């Protein structure tokens, strides 16, 4: 009996020592300049264990999902795929705004994600050791605009799989009520005739003056600025002046910016602030949810957001916005020729396959995504349950999503008279840059920072952050 206990103790001790020793050796390897072989070793190990697990050489799929709102749909898709093919698919969803953090810790594990997202050229720089060349996959060949993919030196490392659009979402019910007023200050008679900043401003300001008649508390929903809720301004709105600047210079990834269109940015930002239902002093504690709630309850007529906002409006308590009344208007900022400007359409979700996973896993992962975007069952999931507008040619018109804002995006995409504003914010130097811009915008809204200061800071931060990230 005694002897038995002794042996247990000794075994446990050995186990602990083994643990610490492996940890040490793992840490030391890169020091000896053997990083590459080390990586190969781990990849080899992975494939071994996989073979043991799956035992059929089919590999496994581990997809780290970006969108919490469709987490259960992906689980359903995974289960369906496993049932059909026998390949195990694991889906993990990162919490909202936590994707990079989750990815960083998941990638460090032995069973790392085989399918993950990068958010654009800047995200690619972070993850380029982990992204596999997808040039020869069907997925890439199905893209209707191959330019959308992330490529470098002839290789394709990120394939977009969902296209999204954002602009000013408006409640047509309230707008019709406004245009029916006899004492309105503008000549136009419908929202379709708003096609530049001057008209938008005139309408918004007149609506503010007549807000009691319209039964609204303000034209624009709160310009939300609480922590983590300023992306609609520091990323999405900032995209417009940058789009025009990049268009003018022809350089989509400059080291420094002139911020030429800062006055236009100020125009639209002031318009949001001055015609909002919330006083600028109280914006620091408003969240995106608050804004979408105000819009859904009919307290505000307009809110800047993207097509993903529909589910939020639909689910909001006390929602009065009808499906047929929710529409998009482009964000006009007062640039010459903007009458032809469309809404902002692009993606920051690029699908990448882990280059350090085993070949079987890579093959399985690509096959899984190809099944999702080309088989009848997969496509049904995509358009009905995920509600994605995909950039793939495998989708017919009838297979496109049915939610009202997604249809609006589709309508704008088809309108070839208009030019689309691309999502150039994927070239913004870092999250830090966006956070600093957000903080400055809030200070400006509160009256604690002059606009010239903000412009100066922003150009400076851009240059600094580009330089720091390049180090």
């Amino acid at each position, binding site marked *: 009996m005694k002897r038995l206990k002794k042996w247990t103790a000794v075994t446990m001790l050995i186990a602990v020592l083994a643990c610490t020793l492996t*940890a040490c050796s793992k840490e030391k390897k890169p020091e000896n300049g053997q990083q590459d072989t080390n990586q190969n070793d781990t990849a080899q190990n992975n494939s071994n264990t996989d073979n043991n697990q799956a035992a059929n050489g089919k590999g496994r799929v581990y997809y780290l999902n970006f969108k919490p709102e469709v987490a259960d749909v992906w689980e359903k898709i995974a289960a369906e795929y496993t049932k059909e093919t026998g390949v195990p698919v694991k889906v993990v969803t990162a919490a909202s705004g936590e994707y990079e953090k989750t990815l960083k810790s998941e990638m460090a594990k032995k069973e790392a994600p085989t399918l993950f997202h990068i958010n654009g050229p800047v995200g690619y720089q972070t993850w380029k050791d982990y992204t596999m060349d997808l040039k020869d996959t069907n997925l890439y060949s199905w893209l209707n605009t191959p330019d959308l993919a992330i490529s470098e030196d002839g290789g394709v490392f990120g394939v977009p799989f969902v296209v999204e659009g954002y602009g000013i979402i408006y409640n047509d019910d309230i707008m019709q009520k406004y245009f029916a007023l006899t004492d309105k200050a503008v000549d136009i008679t419908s929202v379709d005739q708003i096609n530049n900043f001057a008209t938008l401003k005139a309408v918004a300001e007149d609506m503010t003056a007549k807000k009691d008649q319209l039964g609204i508390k303000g034209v624009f929903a709160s310009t939300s600025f609480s922590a983590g809720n300023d992306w609609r301004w520091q990323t999405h709105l900032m995209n417009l002046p940058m789009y025009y600047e990049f268009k003018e210079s022809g350089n989509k990834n400059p080291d420094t910016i002139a911020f030429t269109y800062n006055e236009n940015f100020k125009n639209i930002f002031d318009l949001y602030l001055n015609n909002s239902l919330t006083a600028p002093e109280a*914006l620091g*504690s408003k969240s995106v949810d608050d804004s979408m709630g105000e819009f859904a309850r009919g307290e505000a007529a307009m809110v800047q957001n993207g097509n993903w906002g529909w589910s939020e409006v639909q689910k909001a308590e006390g929602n009065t916005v009808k499906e047929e009344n929710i529409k998009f208007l482009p964000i006009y900022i007062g640039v010459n020729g903007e009458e032809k400007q469309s809404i902002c359409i692009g993606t920051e979700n690029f699908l990448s396959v882990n280059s350090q996973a085993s070949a079987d896993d890579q093959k399985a992962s690509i096959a899984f995504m190809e099944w999702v975007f080309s088989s009848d069952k997969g496509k049904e999931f995509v358009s009905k349950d995920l509600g994605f507008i995909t950039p793939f040619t495998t989708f017919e018109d009838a297979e496109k999503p049915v939610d009202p804002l997604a249809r609006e995006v589709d309508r704008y995409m088809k309108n070839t008279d208009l030019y689309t504003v691309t999502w150039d914010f994927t070239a913004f130097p870092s999250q830090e840059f966006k956070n600093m811009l957000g903080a400055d915008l809030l200070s400006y809204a509160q009256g604690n920072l002059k606009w010239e200061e903000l412009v100066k800071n922003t150009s400076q931060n851009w240059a600094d952050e580009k330089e720091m990230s390049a180090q």
Partner: protein
Amino acid sequence: MQKTYKKYFPVFALPTLIAFAIAFLVPFLMGIYLSFCKFTTVTNAKWVGIANYTRAFSNRDFPSALWFTVKFTVVSVILINILAFLLALLLTRKVKGTNVFRTIFFMPNLIGGIVLGYIWQLIINSVLLATVGADITSRAGYGFWGLVVLMCWQMIGYMMIIYIAGIQNVAPELIEAAQIDGATGWQVLTKVTIPMVMPSVTICLFLTISNSFKLFDQNLSLTAGLPGKQTQMMALDIFNTFYGRNGWEGVGQAKAVIFFVIVGIITFTQLWLTRRKEVEG
């Protein structure tokens, strides 16, 4: 007998040792190693020497976060300990309902920091909006005092309990003897009670200093560093460095190591200083 105990040492201590090694020792050593590396994931790191440490000081974020943290720590440590001690004195007298009061004062400590931060943000914002027409993000001063109030509210109850335990352990004979010798109430307090509760003071100062220095949840949920980065404390700055820029993970790690050294030096100095003042009963 002693020998038999020794034999069983691994059996009883191993589970704890394993847990300690996995959850503390290994990550800690890895963390120090990683502060000298450039990495995206922690298992795939490249040695870069002290570059991370020089980059940690390449802009003023870190020094200004350090300065803000020091200011905050000084103010909150003084306030918390004085108020907690006064409450403890009050609640060791024979007043009716002391137990109820003790429970009530202790309760805030049971609520998590993030939740507390959001609750106080609501309270402070509505007060500020009603009085000065601004919210907590509009001035660094609001954020600073908001954090101090929040920290006091959360920590005072806990420290109070420790002080109460200390005060109750002061032998009544000592106080009686002092009173017979003609000591005033103030003299009894400063010459008998306080020296006798020095062990409690040591532990309370240690807890408040280290907790104020390491404050993160409350900072994140109450101000998130706004306006600008003016109310950003060190832990939050480290977090933002790690996740805010590509390729800056190592710099965040380097800042964390510096942070550890600073907190270590300060708390050990404090322990050493107050330990010397402890007396045997």
